[in-house]
């Protein structure tokens, strides 16, 4: 597969210009995780308001797949209810497991990550941010403002 089929333009764009890559001092929830395989680290911050996940941000370092996936994730879940976020996390994992054919309307840019499925080692990179978001929402992370970085 040519390089630009795995690394689609939208992936490189999110890698080079990550969205919502910032600390969030007033976040109610945050969680840090790493990928022991490659040393990638990520911290995800969540601000909830009115029963909705209003704002999601992240900091950390990693490869283009983990960074772009986290960047796209922050945009795709903002404004959703917890149930909707959980559903989105579930379908993203399904896509990465090769079990779910992504619905382009619901997935938007995230469809670009579909090519990663062919590289099992890299799937862990793609889901790192999503795992961390889910852990943050489950209250597994540190209290707000005390996260690493």
């Amino acid at each position, binding site marked *: 597969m*040519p390089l630009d089929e795995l*690394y689609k333009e939208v992936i490189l764009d999110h890698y080079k210009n990550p969205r919502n890559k910032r600390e969030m001092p007033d976040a109610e929830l945050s969680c840090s995780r790493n990928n022991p*395989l*490659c040393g990638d680290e990520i911290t995800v911050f969540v601000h909830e308001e009115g029963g909705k996940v209003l704002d999601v941000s992240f900091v950390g*370092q990693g*490869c*283009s*797949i983990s960074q772009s996936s986290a960047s796209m994730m922050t945009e795709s879940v903002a404004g959703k209810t917890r149930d909707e976020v959980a559903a989105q996390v579930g379908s993203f994992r399904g896509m990465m497991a090769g079990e779910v054919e992504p619905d382009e309307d619901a997935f938007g840019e995230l469809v670009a990550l579909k090519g990663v499925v062919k590289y099992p080692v890299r799937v862990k*990179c793609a889901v790192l941010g999503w795992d961390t978001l889910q852990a943050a929402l489950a209250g597994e992370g540190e209290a707000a403002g005390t996260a690493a970085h």
Partner: protein
Amino acid sequence: MAVTEQRSAGLDVARIRADFPILERTRNGAPIVYLDSANTSQKPRKVIDTITEYYERHNANLYRAVYELAEEATAMFEDARARLAAFIGAPDVASIVFNRGTTESINLVANAWGRRFLREGDEVLFTEMEHHSNIVPWQLAAAATGASVRMVPIEDDGSLDPTKLEALLTDRTKVLAITGQSNVLGTMPSIKRLAASAHAVGAVVVVDGAQLVPHNPVDVVELDVDFLTISGHKMLGPTASGGLYGRLELLEAMDPFMGGGEMVMEVFPDHATYKAPPHRFEAGTMNIAEEIGLAAAIDYLEELGMQNIRNHERELTAYGIDALESIGATVFGPKDPEVRGGALSFWYKDVHPHDLAQALDEDGVCVRPGHHCAQVLMRRLGVPATTRASFYVYNTREDVDALVASLEKAGAFFAA
């Protein structure tokens, strides 16, 4: 590719390459460029044929049967032990314990020697550049015995200052666990000097030989080490081949590692008596075909000459460091090829190693990204991971050129 280019420092690399069937593999229409021998080496036809012949003509379990096949298999296996002993200069064939390689060997020493002899207050000293397999088994042994672990820091250039290590040697130091050649930095500590210093305080010296033994002439008597680990799969042999050299009087004093068949003399309901080394440490059916295959690999290496191999890699290492630095890569570890081996870990243009290696794969260039099972060292280097290219007998300057060309392409692709 000019044949003259492939003849370096006594190795006829063009002829060597013809012995490795896998080098005929292509990726996207181009021959693969295998630069991951520090991870695992490729296997010459002679090794592959030896394993096939063993299974086709001689396969039987060792020691127990009285038919001809079993006698052949046993003789071949014990001959492999003698060949490995001679290869590293071990005077006693019985001082070679066969097992799956370095990880199993260090665990064997940490358990069978460590748990028997370590006491509260004792120290195990290792260096900042050790592979996880020379750290974690010692942490486990320390936790089980009340001993503690101490780490010797490395220098900014990736070298090890022997005086800093020696300053940490005290009468509490019972083990010096040290790599013979770093799998990340290539650094080769002066084992002979450090072994003498460690012995002066009464410590035993355990050398991780996973990277040292495949690439250098090694003589355990000259180095005067107590234990040396050997990973067969990194020296042209099959996976799960190799073993442990141990000074015989130490092996004799040690407890068994794993219990089971073939390691015992007599078994009673409440106790058992054990065989002498090496069989005390070889429970159950062994990796027979693998060790016989390793003997074929040793033959192949000895035919080439270990000093010739070292010279060839030293030349490639110098060429590789220059080539990588010329395109702006930061190469970790000492720059002087005299004091290092041919594992070149580098950081290039802030492209994450996983992305780099993925891009290189499109050109058939096989390198390893990651922390190389050396997270302690990665923290010291201040990087989450590195990309590593590593050399062996079949590599050429053209391989380095292909690496550099592919890196430049990848750098342009990911450039911010």
